[in-house]
């Protein structure tokens, strides 16, 4: 019983780290631009597909569909670069032209971009699922009846280190300072000589690269990919970001883990007739948090500028 419980906690952490990784991108773009980039989940999907095709093109994967650590790293770099460029292109052509209009305009544009990527993906890649190569050293560790997969450990470690890296960039570097300045007041930042267009493009590149990293890591762990994988995963990651307090980097990771564990527990422990509601759990939690703590768990209440 206890071992099953521990196993479910581990399953939840593994799932949660995926949400955390994607939530980082949402929260960073929001932190700087106050824009919810709904296309983020789809950039995650594109990242996975870039990795899939790169593996075939470079001949990294063996005939039986396995890759080494080095191969996976190359895929991740390729996907991150491709997605970063895509992020910049999306920002340049979809968001920048509407930046000076009310925020709602950007939000609707983001939904449009998301639909474009999803349906464009179906045209381009085909809608049938593809299978991503798996790590050739994908081992599992067993303690009693509790099993831990190496890929899950890698995902947890990578998402926590990316979180630390992001914190450092935002809080300790000059670029980060510029990002915070843009976030605080775009016009004032411009007047202070900050190249705001560049900073915003950089933010998108960074966020999209994070999404691609998540895409590759998740695909190594759960190899089935199709053009719609970003929809529900992206939505739950968004919930995670809001739960943790959108704009707050540590909050995004915390929110991701919470959503992952809650969903796993719902699937594992709700009575039979209810366990198909596991996907609803994430959204129920979101509603509860917004009711009692509108700024999220770690978010700060910012007075609306008038």
């Amino acid at each position, binding site marked *: *019983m206890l071992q099953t419980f521990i196993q479910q906690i581990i399953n939840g952490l593994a799932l949660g780290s995926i949400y955390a990784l994607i939530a980082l991108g949402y929260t960073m773009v929001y932190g700087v631009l106050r824009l919810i980039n709904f296309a983020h989940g789809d950039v995650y999907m594109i990242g996975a597909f870039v990795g899939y095709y790169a593996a075939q093109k470079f001949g990294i994967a063996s005939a039986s569909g396995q890759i080494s650590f080095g191969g996976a790293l190359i895929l991740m770099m390729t996907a991150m670069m491709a997605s970063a460029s895509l992020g910049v292109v999306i920002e340049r052509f979809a968001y920048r032209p509407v930046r000076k209009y009310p925020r709602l305009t950007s939000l609707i544009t983001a939904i449009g971009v998301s639909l474009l990527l999803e349906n464009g993906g179906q045209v381009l890649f085909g809608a*049938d699922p593809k299978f991503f190569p798996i790590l050739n050293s994908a081992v599992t560790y067993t303690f009693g009846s509790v*099993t831990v997969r190496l890929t899950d450990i890698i995902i947890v470690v990578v998402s926590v280190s990316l979180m630390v890296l992001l914190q450092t960039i935002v809080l300790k570097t000059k670029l980060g300072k510029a990002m915070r300045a843009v976030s605080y007041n775009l016009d004032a930042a411009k007047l202070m000589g900050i190249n705001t267009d560049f900073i915003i493009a950089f933010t998108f590149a960074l966020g999209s690269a994070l999404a691609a990293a998540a895409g590759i890591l998740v695909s190594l762990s759960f190899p089935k990919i199709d053009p719609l994988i970003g929809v529900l995963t992206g939505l739950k990651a968004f919930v995670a970001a809001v739960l943790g307090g959108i704009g707050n980097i540590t909050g995004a990771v915390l929110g991701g883990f919470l959503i992952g564990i809650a969903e796993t527990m719902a699937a594992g422990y709700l009575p039979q007739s209810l*366990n198909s509601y596991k996907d609803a759990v994430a959204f129920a939690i979101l509603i509860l948090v917004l009711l009692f703590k509108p700024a999220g768990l770690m978010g700060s209440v910012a007075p609306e500028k008038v």
Partner: protein
Amino acid sequence: MKFERFGRLFVAIATSAVLVCAALLNTACEKRDTQGGPTGQSDAGLPKEIKVGIYMPMTGPTATFGTSSVHGFQMAADELNAAGGINGSMVKLIVEDDQGKPDEAKTVVTKLISKDQVVAVLGEVGSSRSIAAAPICQQNKVPMLTPSSTNEEVTKKGDYIFRVCYIDPFQGEVGARFAFETLKFKKAAILTDIKNDYSVGLSKTFKEAFTKMGGQIVVEQTYQEGDTNFNAQLTGIRAANPEFIYAPGYYTDIGQIAKQARELGIKNEVPLIGGDGWDSPKLWEGGKEALNGCFFSNHYSISDPSEHVQKFIKSFQEKYKGETPDALAALAYDGAKVLFDAMKRANSVKGDKVRDELAKTQSYKGVTGLISINKDRNAVKSAVILEVRDGKYVYKDTIAPPGMTAEKPAAAEAPKTAEEPKKEAAAK
């Protein structure tokens, strides 16, 4: 400046919209290249060209279902036309893609009937889609024949709806009888795709049959098509310690489920057992070795030595560059032939006449067994059990409906004992 920006954005959006439309139109045209001009349909006799509509998932998560089925239909039509058609009239197939979505199925079937004026409709594989489209055919009195939708509800939509496969209550029972009688298992876990009519129906009838025989369901779990992480459900299943897992989902998810089950330490000795939704070359790709020793019920086996079955497999492989016909291709082939046969007997393409002849189909010798349509417009026939073994689906057993004896392929009389349930049937 503002207007200029707006203008450019508008141009960009318009251009992409045009490109997307062009792409869609292009594929639509390709698909419709078998389409001919309008047919003059007279009350008596047959028109020169008989248009039969097909709706199938040519794209989407179950695209291999659609491709296989259309290959089967096309082969039946080509053979028929080469042999002089239906009393001299040629058959034209018009294929529409429903993307595996029930709503889309309604749309394309409406189009087939109202715009293309087809005289009969063939499709779908997925029960959810067939259930969505059947009422439209019924309303327009256009006979619809599904080759492979096994959910009970499909043919209950009206007296113009037929099928040439068995139904889920039987398939669920087959799974239960195989596990209980052949493998001597007593403790089952069930893992259902809750959003899928087919999977829910199969789980329900399996549960009824298995508990009635004296078996025990130790745990039931659900997932949804598109889930990638099944660890939570599988951990629950592992804790209940079943002898096998009944997982009647689609091939797209089963491979992943098997893989994650093995990673969690549920050994290959605990097989997954499923239904015909597993039947796809892609099943193996998703799960590989984790699937070894798993079983699924299906409609026919390529190792059936009967002459007409082997002839079908041979001509199919010649026609489609070595592709081995799966059960869906075989059922589609049989389905189309049963429909053509009914039209021939009716010597008419009028909906009610074709309907009456379809209902009279008795002991039609198809690749997937003898097809007799019963009063509920379902086919009564045997199921085969296949074992997944290193990427191949090996014949294991034949299970006949109650009151019928199984006509087992002679080559497969291998000893099957509970002590060695993994032993491969001696397929020649």
